[in-house]
C-alpha cells in the first residue's frame, strides 16, 4: 500500500521534522546562505565502482556527503521539481529515487533491465530509459511507478535526448550505430540516422535546431537537423601527440544560448570546446583521466566533469574556459547532476 500524503512525486515514508542532527544541518545551511557566495548549488556524482553518490558543494567545491546506492550507478538526474535525485543502478536493474533533503532512497522505479542513461519529459512525469540488454527504450510513469510501454530500437541503446518541445526523443544504439528519432506521442520511430561507431550520447540545443550525437569509437560528434533528419556536420577532433584511438567522444553539454558546446573526449583526458554556430573546435581543456559526462551549475558559471580513471571531478570556469579546480570523489565517477539547492 502506498501512502498518499506527499505533495511531490514520491510519497515520503515518514514526515520530516527538523530535529536532532537536522537542526545542525539547518544551521550549516543558514551559515552558507549568509557567509557563502550565491552559487551554493549541490552536485550529485555517481561513482560506478564505489556504488555511491558523492554530494558536492559547488561553493566550496568539496564533497559534503557520500550516499550509498545500488550496484553500478551511472545515469543520474534531478527530478524537475528538484526534490529527488534519480540514479540508474544498472546491475540492480532499477532506477533509485533519492530524497535530496534526507539523502535517503525513497523508491525504486521499474526501469527494465540494466538501465544506464535516461531522460525526463518537461513535466517530469515521464521517464525514458535505455535498456541496453534487450534493445528497447522503456517509458515509465514516474508518479505511479509503472512502465507505460517500450519502443524497439537498435542494438544496445544508450544515449537519450529529448527535444525541448518534448515531441521527439533521440535514442542512440551503440552497436547499430544509429540515432533513432522517436515520436513521443505515437511512440514510433520516425527516422534513423546512421552515425559513427558506438554512439553514446544525444543532446539537443535549447532552441531545438540541432541535436548533437557523440560517437565514442568513431571519435566524432554528428550534428543532426532534427526536422530533416539529416547530418549537418560531423565534428572531428585532432589533438597533437594523441593517436586517433584515444579520442573517444562521450558526454555533451551545450550552453543554453547555443553558442558553445562542450564534448568529453574520454581517454584523451580533454574537453573539446566547440563554437555552436560554426561547429569548429575552439580549444581543448585538459581535465582528469577518461572524462565521461558533465553538467553546468544553474548560473552557468561552472561546468563540472566526471573523470572515471582518476576518480575526480574537474571544475571548468565557463567564461574563461579554464580548468580551475579538481575535486576527489568516489571510485570511477561517471554521471553528474546539479541542483539549485
Amino acid at each position, binding site marked *: 500500500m502506498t501512502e498518499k500524503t506527499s505533495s511531490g512525486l514520491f510519497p515520503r515514508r515518514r514526515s520530516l521534522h527538523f530535529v536532532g542532527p537536522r537542526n545542525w544541518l539547518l544551521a550549516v545551511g543558514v551559515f552558507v546562505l549568509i557567509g557563502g557566495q550565491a552559487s551554493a548549488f549541490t552536485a550529485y556524482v555517481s561513482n560506478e565502482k564505489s556504488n555511491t553518490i558523492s554530494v558536492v558543494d559547488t561553493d566550496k567545491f568539496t564533497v559534503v556527503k557520500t550516499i550509498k546506492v545500488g550496484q553500478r550507478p551511472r545515469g543520474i538526474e534531478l527530478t524537475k521539481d528538484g526534490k529527488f535525485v534519480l540514479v540508474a543502478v544498472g546491475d540492480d536493474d532499477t532506477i533509485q529515487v533519492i530524497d535530496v533533503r534526507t539523502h535517503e532512497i525513497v523508491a525504486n522505479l521499474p526501469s527494465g533491465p540494466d538501465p544506464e542513461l535516461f531522460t525526463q519529459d518537461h513535466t517530469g512525469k515521464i521517464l525514458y530509459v535505455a535498456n541496453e540488454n534487450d534493445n528497447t527504450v522503456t517509458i515509465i510513469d514516474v508518479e505511479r511507478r509503472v512502465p507505460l510501454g517500450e519502443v524497439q530500437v537498435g542494438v544496445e541503446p544508450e544515449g537519450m535526448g529529448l527535444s525541448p518541445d518534448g515531441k521527439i526523443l533521440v535514442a542512440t544504439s551503440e552497436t547499430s550505430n544509429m540515432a533513432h528519432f522517436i515520436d513521443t506521442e505515437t511512440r514510433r520511430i520516425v527516422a534513423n540516422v546512421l552515425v559513427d*561507431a558506438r554512439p553514446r550520447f544525444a543532446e539537443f540545443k535549447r532552441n531545438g535546431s540541432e541535436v548533437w550525437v557523440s560517437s565514442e569509437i568513431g571519435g566524432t560528434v554528428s550534428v543532426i537537423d532534427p526536422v530533416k533528419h539529416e547530418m549537418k556536420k560531423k565534428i572531428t577532433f585532432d589533438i597533437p601527440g594523441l593517436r586517433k*584511438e584515444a579520442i573517444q567522444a562521450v558526454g555533451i553539454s551545450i550552453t543554453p544560448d547555443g553558442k558553445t558546446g562542450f564534448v568529453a573526449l574520454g581517454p584523451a583526458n580533454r574537453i573539446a570546446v566547440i563554437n555552436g554556430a560554426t561547429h569548429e573546435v575552439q580549444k581543448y581543456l585538459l581535465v582528469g583521466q577518461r572524462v565521461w559526462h558533465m553538467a553546468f551549475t544553474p548560473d552557468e558559471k561552472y561546468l563540472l566533469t566526471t573523470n572515471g580513471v582518476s576518480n575526480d571531478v574537474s571544475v571548468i570556469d565557463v567564461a574563461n574556459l579554464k580548468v580551475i579546480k579538481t575535486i576527489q570523489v568516489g571510485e570511477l565517477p561517471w554521471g553528474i547532476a546539479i541542483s539549485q539547492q
Partner: protein
Amino acid sequence: MSPDRCASLIRLLLAGTFLFAWMSASTDAAEINISYLRRADPKSTLSLIQTPAANDGLAGARLAIDDNNTTGRFLNQQFSLEDVRLGGGADAAAATMALAERGVSLVIADLPPDGLLKAADADASRKLLFFNVGAIDDRLREEDCRANLIHTAPTRSMLADALAQYLVWKQWRRWLLVVGSHAEDKLYGDALRRSAKRFGARIVQEKVFEDTGGARRTDSGVVQIQRQLPVFTQGAPAYDVLVAADESEVFASYLPYRTWDPRPVAGSAGLVPTSWDGSHDQWGAVQLQDRFMRQFSRRMTARDMQAWTAVRMIGEGASRTRSADPKAMLDFLTGPDFALAAFKGQRLTLRDWNLQLRQPILLSDGRMIVSVSPQEGFLHQVSELDTLGIDRPESQCRLK
C-alpha cells in the same frame, strides 16, 4: 561542361534518385547471404572445460547476424547465415566453387591455412570476399596474403607481442621457453622468440617437450604428471617466467603449479593472450556476453568473437555502402571511414597492406582478464595497435 552534358547528367542523377527511392520503398528487404565454411574435425584439449563446443565460432556469427538484422530492420536489409561443414576428405576449393555457383559472395572461413588458401584461390575471378576467423598463421598475412582474404583472427606474432609487452612491463624479462614438437608449436615458439628480441626479454633456456603420444584422458594421470613436470623443469638457469608454446594441447596446461621452481606460466597456459575471453567485461562487453549466454547457454570464446567481428564487419559494410557487393564492401572496410566497435575500448580497423584486423589482445588467466595489450608506453607513429604483430615496413605481403 556543355549544357547538353549537364542536362543529361541531371537526368541521370534524377533517374538514380528515383531508382533509389523505388528501391527504398519496395517492401522486399535486400538479402545478404553469408556462408560459414568450416572443417568438421573437433579439437581435443587437455582441460575438459576448454573443449570447443560443436558450434564454436558459428555461434558468434549467428549472434552477429541477429545484431545485423536488428539494425537491418531500419535499413531494409536482411542477413542470413548458412553453415557449410567440410568432411574429412572434402576439398575446400570445390566447396568454394559450389558456393560461388549458388551466388554466395561473402564467406566466413574457419579452415586450416592450406584449406583457406585453396578456398581463396578457387575464386579466380575475385568475386568473393573471405573472412578468416580461425587461422592465426602469420604467413597468411605475409608471403601467402590474398587480396580477397580479410583476417579477424589475430596472428601468432600479435598474440606473442601482446604477451611479451606485458611480461616486460612486469619486469619478468628472463624467460624459460618450452616448445612442443608439432609444427604449430614451433611456429608459436618462433613468434615468442621474435617478441622476446623485439621487446627486450631474454630466453635463458629453451626446451622441447616431445609429444610421445598417449591419451589426454586417463584415470589416474595426475599422479604421474605431478612427478614428471617438476623433473622436466629442473635445473633451469634463473628465470622469471616459464613461457610455453603448445598449440597442440600436449603439455602446457600441466605446467602451472608443477614447475621445479615456483614460477608463473604464460603462453599456451597460465597467462594466455587471446582475442576474447568469456570473462571479459569492460567497455560494454557485458552486453555482448549476456546476449551470447542467453542465446547459446555457454560462454563466448575467441573463435566466437572472431566470427562475430567478421559478420559485424559485413553488417557495417552493408549499412554504410547500402550494398552487399564484396568489392564495395572491401573498399569501405579498407578505407578511412571504417571503424568497428567491438568492446575492446578502442576502434578496430584494417591494416590495408595485408587485410589484418588491428585489435587489442586480452591476457586471460582463464578466470579473469589480467591485462589488455598494447601496454602503456609502447608507442607507434600510426597506431599503438601496430606495436602488435608484423608491422608495415617489415611486411612481405604484396596484395594481388
